[in-house]
């Protein structure tokens, strides 16, 4: 990340973010006033124990759920007042997800898994030529016509990364992207994320339990009991 980048308006700006889940008659305070700024092109690792609110933060930033209160702006858009349709649009255009369990559609090939993301974003036609370079970088250009069951965990995760960035979202959200991988594949995926961040200037917010994985980011944010430490 360049110094210039740090001077820009944050691509993720969070102030006093709270989220309370109602579980039966019990209120669970998952986030208790989170403040966080992430600059464009920054690679931020979010670490913390289970129940610290990492995943809730991930879901709110990704537009998967509403915050209870606070201010949150993603790429200049106020997330708090967004309707369901606007949050759907945010996921389509501004954020991409990488999950721990890869979450590829099992009935489609790797290529089709990537193309479905383009289809959802109303982008017609085959993958653009410049994206083929990224597929080479990810090392999956020769595995595109295989279904997920024929791919290794590392390959599936790299396909998931390709799917997450094919529509050039401003932010890539990765939830434990190496949680299901062995060390070799974990290192490869993390190196790829850092490489993509460097080459494409992709803002990355990565949740992880693994301190070693967290070290791949520019900055580590630690969460505990719904707060950022």
């Amino acid at each position, binding site marked *: 990340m360049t110094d210039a980048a740090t001077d820009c308006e944050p691509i993720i700006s969070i102030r006093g973010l709270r989220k309370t889940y109602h579980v039966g008659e019990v209120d669970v305070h998952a986030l208790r006033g989170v403040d966080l700024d992430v600059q464009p092109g920054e690679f931020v690792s979010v670490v913390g124990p289970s129940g610290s609110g990492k995943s809730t933060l991930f879901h709110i930033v990704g537009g998967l759920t509403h915050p209870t209160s606070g201010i949150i702006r993603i790429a200049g858009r106020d997330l708090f007042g967004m309707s369901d349709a606007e949050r759907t649009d945010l*996921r389509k255009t501004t954020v991409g997800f990488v999950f721990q369990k890869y979450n590829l559609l099992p009935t489609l090939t790797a290529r089709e898994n990537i193309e479905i993301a383009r289809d959802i*974003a109303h982008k017609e036609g085959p993958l653009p030529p410049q994206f083929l370079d990224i597929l080479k970088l990810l090392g999956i250009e020769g595995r595109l016509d295989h279904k997920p069951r024929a791919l290794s965990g590392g390959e599936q995760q790299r396909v998931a990364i390709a799917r997450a960035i094919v529509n050039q979202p401003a932010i890539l959200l990765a939830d434990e992207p190496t949680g299901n991988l062995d060390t070799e594949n974990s290192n490869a995926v993390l190196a790829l994320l850092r490489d993509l961040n460097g080459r494409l200037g992709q803002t990355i917010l990565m949740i992880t339990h693994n301190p070693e994985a967290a070290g791949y980011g520019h900055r580590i944010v630690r969460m505990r009991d719904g707060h950022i430490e």
Partner: protein
Amino acid sequence: MTNKLVFENLRHRPVRTLIGIVVIAIQVTLILTLVGLKEGVMSDQANRNRGVGADIMVRPPSSSIISMSGGMPTGIAKRIDQQPDVKLSTGVLQQGTDLFNYVTGLDLSQFDKLSGGFHFLSGGPFQHPDDVIIDEFYARQHKYHVGDTIMLLNRPWRVSGIYEPGMLTRVVVPLQTLQDLTANTGKVSMIYVKLDDPSKTDQVVSQLRQVLKDYRIYSMEEFTSLYSVSNVPMLQGFIWVVIGLGVVVGFLAILLSMYTAVLERTREIGVLKALGASPAYILNILLREAALIAVIGAVLGILFSYVTRFLIHNVVPASLIQAIVPEWWPIAGAIAVVGALLGALGPGLKAARQDAIEALAYD
């Protein structure tokens, strides 16, 4: 890409998909077979009446299109014969034997003059009062041959001849024997009239209506046109009930199939939502799946209707005639598709409204 996903989803669970297709096919077959039977039986009746070669038909007062009971004196035929332009007339008596069949009693010599006679494939006309002649379909269905003794109306008859189908009826006995046997001595249930000049049919019909007040007098063209389902209200209602049941069965089959599909693919639905798929996109996928199952099922159902026709024609050729009614293909197909879409709507909306986070956490 959406179509590819739809196709692959269906291919991914072949047994479930096949069951959905077969249920829809059965639904469509049911509709087409029923409609085919209605059309087939009605047009067969009409064709057999046309085959008589008469120009006018006279029936008793208060009779209906499906009534077969006796009811008018044979002397009516003599009055008809006295009318200008009438060449000859002959009365027949019909007596039902079961739901689909009836025995016709007629004066064979008089009937031959009117119709040109039966074309016998084996044997020949009655020789005795207890003789019966049958058409080829009836003989084939019951495996009867000339010389066999058959039971009709609780008494034995000897088969004296087997004739080519398409003439009036399937089972014919001497008129007087049937009249005596059914306590209709001196009565007939209809009279066929042949004219010197068929172009004068309308004129003679008007004449006869003056002479035979209250009697049902039709030109054969008019009479055969009455063989339609709209003139048999109960049958019309029955058809709609069966179609309704078909829609319900198709609806439930797809509802169940799509409901299990949505449950099974909960996580995938969450993934699509995370990728930015709108509720409409998710609903669209499931509706397309249901529509594809319904369309394939409908095509298969049309093919099955040929199978049912083959079976009916070979197992009960004398009882039921199933026509192929292509005009009903799009109707049956539309019923199947609409039923399937309605069945998929509930599970589809459930999927579309699924919370993305819960869906992604689903195992």
